[in-house]
């Protein structure tokens, strides 16, 4: 409640009014206030939220470290532009997928930023290493950081692991940042080494306009 019901009106001799004080106490009005009073159903907000992340397993330290080292290697091979060695981390049916939105669940039949099996990876590798790949002429480098490695499930056949990445890219004189989440489905090859069945990359800033494009896997 205000101390005075009349709001003072400023006039030519307003100085004396400064002595009077009006105090509107917060939240005491009956019913809704602000825009809600005008339009009770209106909300400008975009839907948000999502499921809480699944708790990480605490597997044996050996598995945790093996998976972490594997994910670090994946990122380091990209930074080192060792395309074939990077592709070799994938299982024969391996897929690299960067969907547009988190809600997407299928890599095929879905609008994607990347959706590549090993044959398409081979085309991309062939393209960026071709002498006349014009967009490859400018100096460029990337630097990945991988963290938050959480194994969600692990069986003899398959390991589900999520992690976060941050990639800085230098191209000519410009630095760009790409961040997001990896979700790896890992399997083991005949020799028992980890291989990628699916590398899902949810780009945190994939909905923002791309300043130029992505030429290579993130």
């Amino acid at each position, binding site marked *: 409640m205000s101390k005075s019901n009349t709001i003072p009106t400023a006039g030519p001799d307003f100085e004396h009014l400064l002595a009077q004080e009006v105090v509107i106490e917060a939240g005491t009005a009956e019913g809704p206030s602000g825009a809600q009073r005008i339009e009770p159903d209106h909300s400008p907000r975009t839907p948000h939220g999502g499921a809480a992340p699944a708790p990480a397993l605490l597997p044996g330290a050996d598995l945790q470290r093996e998976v972490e080292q594997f994910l670090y290697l994946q990122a380091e091979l990209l930074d080192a532009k060792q395309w074939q060695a990077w592709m070799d981390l994938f299982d024969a049916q391996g897929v690299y997928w960067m969907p547009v939105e988190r809600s997407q669940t299928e890599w095929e*039949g879905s*609008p994607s930023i990347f959706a590549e099996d090993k044959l398409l990876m081979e085309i991309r590798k062939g*393209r960026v290493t071709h002498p006349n790949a014009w967009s490859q002429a400018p100096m460029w480098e990337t630097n990945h950081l991988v963290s938050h490695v959480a194994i969600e499930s692990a069986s003899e056949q398959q390991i589900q692991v999520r992690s976060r990445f941050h990639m800085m890219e230098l191209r000519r004189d410009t630095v760009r940042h790409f961040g997001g989440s990896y979700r790896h489905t890992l399997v083991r090859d005949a020799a028992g080494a980890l291989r990628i069945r699916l590398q899902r990359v949810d780009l945190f800033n994939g909905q923002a306009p791309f300043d130029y494009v992505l030429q290579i896997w993130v």
Partner: protein
Amino acid sequence: MNLKPLVEPDRVHKSVYTDPKIFDLEMEKIWERTWVYCGHESQVKNPGDYHALTIGRQPMVMVRQKDGSVQVLYNRCPHRGVQLVGNLKGNTGSAFVCSYHAWSFHLDGKVRAIPLAAGYEGTRLTRDNPDCSMKRAARVDSYRGFVFASLASEGESLRDFLGEARIAFDDMCDRSPVGEVEVVPICHRVVQHSNWKFFMENQLDSLHPSVTHQSTGISAGRVEKRLKAEQGSAPLYYHYLSTFASSFEQWDAVQTINFPRGHGILKAYMGLRPQDPDTLAHEALLKQAYGEQKAEEYLSRSIHHVLVYPYLSVQSPLQQLRCLRPISPDKTLSEIWHFRLKGAPEAIYRRSLWYYNLVNSPATMINADDLENWTKGQWGLQSNGGDWVSFHRHFGDDRVEAGVTYSNHGTSEAVMRNQFRAWSTYMSAA
């Protein structure tokens, strides 16, 4: 500003790509007068669904009305100018409400309520004062579900503006047995660091693919060939990429058709009518819906791109389009959309999706090299190393019939010459 000396029939002055004053004039005389693409009706399905966009320099919002029609409004509160929707898309309920002082508006922009409205009694801000409501685009119209708006109250109709380029939307929709498409509700947005004209010229430039896209064409061709040797065939999408590496002579055989107002067509070259079971099933549906003769007419149109000058490139056989929203002389936002043919087999959608993912996505193996060219092009044109941009190729050798310019050679720069004829007409208007 006298622009006449800047555009000659076979060359143009570099400043039309670089001068901020000319860019401002383009926004005023072209974008803010002519019909500009806003979006597809299926982007705003339910009343209150909106999509924000720009027409020239104007922030607009396309919104579905309660009566089912689509309206395009300035995204601006008439009170203090605050933008009314703060997101690219969403649903605003039954009203727009300003976040500053809670002025509210019906979906058609008319004022609905203002807090303590008695405060306006006796002032000239009355409910029927146009300054009390959101301003609307002067004209809104649609063609086969594609919504356009014009900020000028006078001028030619949408049908006349589109002219022969209407085929872009006819060709896309006629491939659906019910004659309609529906948007895939995802928009890729890529910023090009170049003047919008680079994109429009490039779309029908048949000399560049085998140079610019050689790396991808060759790499894809190698895998495609191996697959064919190993298993007898390769999916069509390898061919999407490998055709880019065709020879100069092959490209020279792909004709362009150049219409008044700068619109144009690049004829088909990708062999997008294979005779596999999916295509045949789709064709059977069309024959059922339209009859043998009509369906055949629809399916045998030779189109790769249709350009709606100055901002739209439509790939109707692959159901996708790219729309330009210029930002500054050297910065252009492109919006990339894909559509589904209503009633057509899923396989047809998936086939075109490969093109969307491989060629038009932000990880494109094709446009990466285009964008690199245009960026360097923009930098080059800003230099004093020369004043003119050359469009002399096959000048004087094109066939003109009833205002339509047919290139005798696919690589003719008739495309650019035609676009600048339209540009000059727009820019010289009072």
